């Protein structure tokens, strides 16, 4: 049993020596609110003597005050960390618990079982090797059990313990155990687990946790603790091809250039050939440097510093890989995405994707279908809400190196970050690179933007007019175009309403459609800029992230955000199309400024207020500013026009 070794008292040095060889297991416990999950973990801590006397004293006091077990100790109270939760009597986030025995150290991810907390389960499971799924013997396999099992398989856990708990409440009946086992096995066939172990337990009474229970003589399998102590952790990571995301380039002096990172898979030794997938450059490992001396070999999981034989370009974010077994390298892939935020996923919106040590702009270019976590059925959908799971196509700002998640958990995962709030909004598992990404290459063109611009004697750019409906965007944009025209400039005006009659006529006014609307207009504007044209875009474009996305599609200095900052009262008073009246009457939904938000620009290049000057004056002001910069323009090769 845990830390009960006589060696502690008799020969502490020998004990410590033995402890150094311990391995580690990370597991997750999944169960519904009343399955006794917290009681089970409390019991494991208790039985491995990890509850200290002072904790026991406060546990006893708390058990009497808020416990649910009468005069008995309520082990669950050991775990509910935050005060508010303790009062509500529920666990609401992922908590990590630690215990150890003489054989292993354990890290337990303790996650809640409520419907709305898929997010937490996926988080807890992402670092786990094994899942312990609790089933209440009185209730059998529930919808929640199926959901937990699916999520566990989704995240790539291959070994599962099904702990059938509260056996004391069904008189330790073998038939109950058998029925639940058969039900579960049938359901789990589609999940592809490598190993499922069923154990009848009573967390409250301690049956089959450490020692065989006196009432389950019919059970001959392992005790829960002995299973956890001996289950083989996935050592496959070391057998897969070498991968190491470079976190940090170490240059203490001119003679040393080391690449620091944690080996994601495989092993490495001096002399091994490695490749940088983004450039295709290869070299051989010269040395594996650590503060404890150079290593002859390093394996998956180790944090090391590699030096290479040749001076090749390697920087943070590169995935150093075995030259003979390279990862995929693509800018489009299909992945399973778990949505983790209250704000829904908007396909087409630009998010940041972090994988390995690199962060790249990304869009969901298509939501193929959603998976119902209760039934595993596929459903159509346009967005993902909190806790929904979708199979999506992703389009990245530049190509990344990766492996499919099912082959390599460490190099096939990613998180999505909202660019405005910086919140972590999604977690993804890559399935495969899309063929179109690998097969469609950029067609190099000989007549380029620069030559087209020089012919027109102008610097192409985008004037992006944004503001409320009725602010005067289109009126001012029209006047600007006329003035430019009279100065001999080549222009084109993309008007919001007009575009919705053609290019975007399939789109409505939901947030998702608004994002796609702007994305297409941004792409169209980019083509015009490439053609050497000054493009005027007049769109409400209420969201900052989409305006920023449009900005990023063109080169720096080619984008002017023109904020037509006319107060809402003025716009509403004018109401040129009678839309405000309709919106106020409730006949028009999702109207910007009324029941849909407008996010003001943070640092627009130009701000004008149509309530303070005439449209004519404002247009003149805009033309002056844009052409001033146009005439001082230097082309990138330094030749002045």
């Amino acid at each position, binding site marked *: 049993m845990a830390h009960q070794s006589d060696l502690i008292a008799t020969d502490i040095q020998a004990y410590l020596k033995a402890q150094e060889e311990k391995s580690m297991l990370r597991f997750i416990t999944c169960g519904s609110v009343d399955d006794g999950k917290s009681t089970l973990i409390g019991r494991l801590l208790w039985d491995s003597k990890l509850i200290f006397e002072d904790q026991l004293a406060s546990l006893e006091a708390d058990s009497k005050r808020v416990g649910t077990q009468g005069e008995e100790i309520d082990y669950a109270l050991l775990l509910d960390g935050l005060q508010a939760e303790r009062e509500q009597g529920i666990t609401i986030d992922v908590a990590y618990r630690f215990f150890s025995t003489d054989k292993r150290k354990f890290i337990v991810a303790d996650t809640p079982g409520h419907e709305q907390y898929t997010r937490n389960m996926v988080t807890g499971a992402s670092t786990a090797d094994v899942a312990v799924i609790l089933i209440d013997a009185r209730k059998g396999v529930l919808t929640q059990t199926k959901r937990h099992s699916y999520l566990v398989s989704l995240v790539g856990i291959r070994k599962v313990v099904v702990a059938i708990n509260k056996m004391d409440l069904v008189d330790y009946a073998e038939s109950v155990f058998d029925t639940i086992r058969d039900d579960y096995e049938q359901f789990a066939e589609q999940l592809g687990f490598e190993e499922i172990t069923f154990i009848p337990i009573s967390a409250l009474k301690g049956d089959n946790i450490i020692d065989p229970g006196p009432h389950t003589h019919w059970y001959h399998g392992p005790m829960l603790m002995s299973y956890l102590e001996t289950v083989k952790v996935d050592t496959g990571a070391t057998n897969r091809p070498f991968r190491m995301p470079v976190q940090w380039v170490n240059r*203490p002096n001119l003679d040393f250039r080391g690449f620091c990172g944690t080996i994601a898979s495989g092993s490495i030794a001096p002399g091994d050939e490695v490749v940088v997938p983004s450039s295709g450059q290869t070299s051989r490992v010269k040395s594996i440097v650590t503060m404890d001396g150079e290593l002859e070999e390093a394996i998956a999981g180790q*944090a090391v510093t590699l030096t290479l034989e040749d001076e090749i370009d390697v920087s943070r974010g590169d995935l150093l890989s075995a030259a003979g077994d390279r990862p995929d390298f693509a800018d489009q892939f299909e992945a399973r995405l778990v949505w983790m935020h209250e704000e829904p996923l908007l396909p087409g919106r630009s998010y*940041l994707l972090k994988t390995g040590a690199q962060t790249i702009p990304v869009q969901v270019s298509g939501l193929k279908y959603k998976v119902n976590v209760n039934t595993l059925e596929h459903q159509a959908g346009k967005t993902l809400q909190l806790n929904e799971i979708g199979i999506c196509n992703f389009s990245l700002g530049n190509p990344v190196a990766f492996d499919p998640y099912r082959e390599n958990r460490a190099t096939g995962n990613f998180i999505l970050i909202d660019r405005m709030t910086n919140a972590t909004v999604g977690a993804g598992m890559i399935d495969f690179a899309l063929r179109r990404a690998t097969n469609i290459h950029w067609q190099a063109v000989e007549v380029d933007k620069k030559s087209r611009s020089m012919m027109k004697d102008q610097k192409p750019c985008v004037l992006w007019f944004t503001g409320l409906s009725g602010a005067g965007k289109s009126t001012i944009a029209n006047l600007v175009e006329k003035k430019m025209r009279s100065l001999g400039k080549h222009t084109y005006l993309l008007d919001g309403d007009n575009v919705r009659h053609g290019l975007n006529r399939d789109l409505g006014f939901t947030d998702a459609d608004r994002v796609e609307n702007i994305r297409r207009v941004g792409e169209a504007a980019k083509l015009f800029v490439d053609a050497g044209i000054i493009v005027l875009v007049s769109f409400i474009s209420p969201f900052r992230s989409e305006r920023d996305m449009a900005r990023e599609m063109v080169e720096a200095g080619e984008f002017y955000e023109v904020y037509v900052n006319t107060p809402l009262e003025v716009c509403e008073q004018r109401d040129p199309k009678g839309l405000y009246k309709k919106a106020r009457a409730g006949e028009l939904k999702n109207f910007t400024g009324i029941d849909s938000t407008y996010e003001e620009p943070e640092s627009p290049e130009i701000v004008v207020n149509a309530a303070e000057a005439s449209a004519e004056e404002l247009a003149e002001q805009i033309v002056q500013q844009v052409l001033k910069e146009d005439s001082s323009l230097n082309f990138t090769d330094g030749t002045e026009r």
Partner: protein
Amino acid sequence: MKLEMTHLRQLEAESIHIIREVAAEFENPVMLYSIGKDSSVMLHLARKAFYPAKPPFPLMHVDTTWKFKEMIEFRDRMAREHGFDLLIYTNEEGVRQGISPFTHGSALYTDVMKTEGLKQALDKYKFDAAFGGARRDEEKSRAKERIYSFRSETHRWDPKNQRPELWNLYNARVKPGESIRAFPISNWTELDIWQYIYLEDIPIVPLYYSKVRPVVERDGMLILVDDERIPLDPGEEPMMKSVRFRTLGCYPLTGAVESTATTLPEIIQEMLLVRTSERQGRLIDHDQAGSMEKKKQEGYF
């Protein structure tokens, strides 16, 4: 080929990964150095992470002026030996007001000299990331703490608004003024820390080892008479006892345990045989129910 790493090597690698990631992604990180055993381990890991270079960030000690003398000596020796850039910050306003744990109580004292001092220091140097040596096993509210703990512009921790952390992918995006506290040794337990100190022969403050020291009893705890600022009752003489410390903080708030353990194996042996959790020796956690959680929300680690 050996396919599996021992638990200490896995913990070590995870911590190094976190330290490198923070150094790479933040503009102005700092390592908070509290001089205790957890800080000593964290510092050792930082040295490993960047060897042969030095860690690319300074160390900072928020000095409450009530630390044990031996801690200060140890701090200065470490900085000298390893050539660290060491910043020392004290809440001078608190010093001027004469804030003392003896006269103002531990709650107010901790708030002013530790929490306020830390916030002032972070504001002064505009650090956007601060490493701390907290562990999840220390206290219930820490079990749910993230590796990257997000803090608002006013350094507040909102337990309901923490980012989910998956795999080893940490979200390092903060707006100007916002920051994170990074906890690279989150997954270590007290036993892991001691075993690692033993395995790696990491230097620690001598106060962890037993020695006959002058102590007085206060609120059931043995308090070291570290200097003349400790108020003694009329006629009270300090007792000479063989004591050591399981945890180190400000001397008036840190209880000693009676012990004869003078070597690391003896300390570990004692820890495994004696059953009280380590923060028990610290007065501040017991001020009120859920007190650590409250302090964290206000900006304490």
